[in-house]
């Protein structure tokens, strides 16, 4: 930040921009104490969040194995990704399916559940919040699903189906390609009532109650109209925040997939862009190729966030 301003102020006296820059520089010098307070956080933040994105964009145009000096290869990594790498195309397809299902479903679920429990008395509401939020809180506890979907007859779901004679022999849930994707989606949904859910509860609770009275006078007749014309528009900032969190999470599926279906999974049925990234980045050390994958993922996350922001701006209009 500061060096940038310094360089600019060196040109004082030339052009109409100069006085403005000089004033900014003076302001910046006066705010020294503030910059000192910002420095520790932004130093870490830039090193581990901003710089990596820029660096990864750069490295994605090279061939780099961490040992030799990177070689510029232009678009080759990207061309290979989309034309030659069949496994990447499977990963891309799976990631899009995950995102298209878990993103919207979890987002709507977060809101609807928050909306229902909002009218509960405080004690009951706190309890319901805990029940819904507990899975997101409990971290690695999702491995309990491997027991539920265990492939022998001790697996709870197999045992249940066997008992009611719905199946004749245990199903190899996590080893059969057609079941892997739906199971990961279920577990991912189980984990997804997180930060956005809390944000929606908070947003609904802090709503101005006068708005509903005013709405009743203006001819709002039922709960659905109230929801669309009053609740949703006044929740818009919260909805934006929730959307960002949910979208980002829905593209990052990997941990659950590898823990449940193994790595690599049978016929790559649980392979996602992130697991593909880990394969090339931390196993094969093809950093250039891995960076190209990371850049594609970054573009997908950012792109869908920006599109959804546009759509949400229309809510309640």
């Amino acid at each position, binding site marked *: *930040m500061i060096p940038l301003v310094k360089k600019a102020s060196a040109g004082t006296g030339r052009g109409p921009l100069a006085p403005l820059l000089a004033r900014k520089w003076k*302001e*910046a010098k006066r*705010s020294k104490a*503030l*910059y000192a307070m*910002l420095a*520790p*956080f932004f130093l870490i933040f830039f*090193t*581990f*969040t*901003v710089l*990596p*994105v820029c*660096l990864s964009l750069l*490295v994605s145009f090279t061939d780099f194995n*961490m040992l030799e000096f990177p070689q510029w290869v232009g678009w080759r990594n990207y061309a290979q990704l989309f034309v030659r790498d069949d496994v990447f195309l499977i990963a891309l397809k799976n990631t899009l399916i995950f995102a298209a299902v878990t993103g919207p479903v979890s987002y709507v679920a977060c809101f609807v*559940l928050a909306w229902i*429990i909002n009218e509960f008395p405080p004690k009951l509401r*706190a309890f*319901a*919040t*805990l029940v*819904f*939020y507990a*899975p997101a*809180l*409990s*971290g*690695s*506890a999702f*491995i*309990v699903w491997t027991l*539920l979907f265990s492939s022998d007859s*001790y697996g709870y779901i197999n*045992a249940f189906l*066997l008992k009611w004679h719905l199946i004749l022999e245990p199903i190899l849930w996590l080893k059969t390609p057609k079941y892997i994707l739906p199971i990961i989606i279920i577990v991912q949904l*189980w984990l997804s*009532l997180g*930060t956005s859910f*809390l*944000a929606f509860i908070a*947003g609904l609770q802090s709503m101005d109650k006068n708005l509903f009275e005013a709405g009743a006078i203006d001819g709002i007749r039922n709960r659905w109209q109230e929801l669309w014309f009053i609740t949703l528009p006044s929740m*818009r*900032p*919260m909805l*934006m*925040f929730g959307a960002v969190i949910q*979208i*980002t999470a829905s593209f990052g599926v990997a941990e659950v997939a590898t823990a449940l279906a193994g790595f690599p999974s049978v016929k790559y049925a649980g392979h996602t862009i992130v697991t593909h*990234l880990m394969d090339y980045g*931390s196993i094969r050390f093809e*950093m250039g190729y*891995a*960076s190209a994958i*990371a850049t594609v*993922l970054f573009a997908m996350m950012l792109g869908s*966030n*920006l599109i959804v922001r546009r759509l949400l701006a229309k809510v309640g209009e």
Partner: protein
Amino acid sequence: MLFLVLAAVGYFMAMPLVFVISNAFKPINEILKFPPDFLVKHPTLTNFTDLYHLLSGSWVPFTRYLFNTFFIAIAGTAGHVLIASMAAYPLAKRKFPGRAMLFSVVVLSLMFSATVTQITNYMTMSWLGFLDTHWAVIVPAIGSSLGLYLMKQFMEQIPDALLEAAQIDGCSEFRIFWNVVMPVVRPAWLTLIIFSFQGLWGAGGAAGSMYIYSEQLKTIDYALGQILAGGIIRTGPSMAATLLLLTVPILIFVLSQSSVIQTMSTSGMKD
């Protein structure tokens, strides 16, 4: 109708965790029973003692895994709350060149996850000498942008009059932050604590496995994975371990829930 939906979703959410609790107390004959019962009939603590024996038998002592987990979670959380709050104060309450730019970068960073940065971070970590140390997990967590964002949004509602009074008394910016702002934003710290702690508590699995190789630096949930790999016969002890692991963040959340909700009410994003 709505309550039916709520009950169904509630069952779906709670069922696996109830399964964990129930299995953690099942004696071995109930675990091996077919068809398995969902709930425990004769609860016992043998799984917990078995867990203790299993772990004390491994060549890295159990207390070492425990220490690693606590060290990462506590150091990372404490650093994050202090450093993110210190940066949030100028962003929320002061005007200076570069403020809008810094904040929009923070908001932008919420739109992609850490998975995007992990490849390049691996290289950065190796240059900084962070590989195979706890710092590889702790330091990036300190600079997490979600915490800064929530803290900044919460600090915006502090009345300016409060800060002006301190300024007239001749307090430095740091003194204002530390003595005036920090006590007022207590609900927001608790929120940052729960989010950061929860992320780091399970971090041994995701980030940890990427940057940390030494056995004696690994965390509890890595040890847990090892136990679970022992198959059906290890179900009891591994469920006992899962139960112990998930109690900690849930307990923190129960104690801080109202503060968290209070903080989240300012989390909205203006367009």
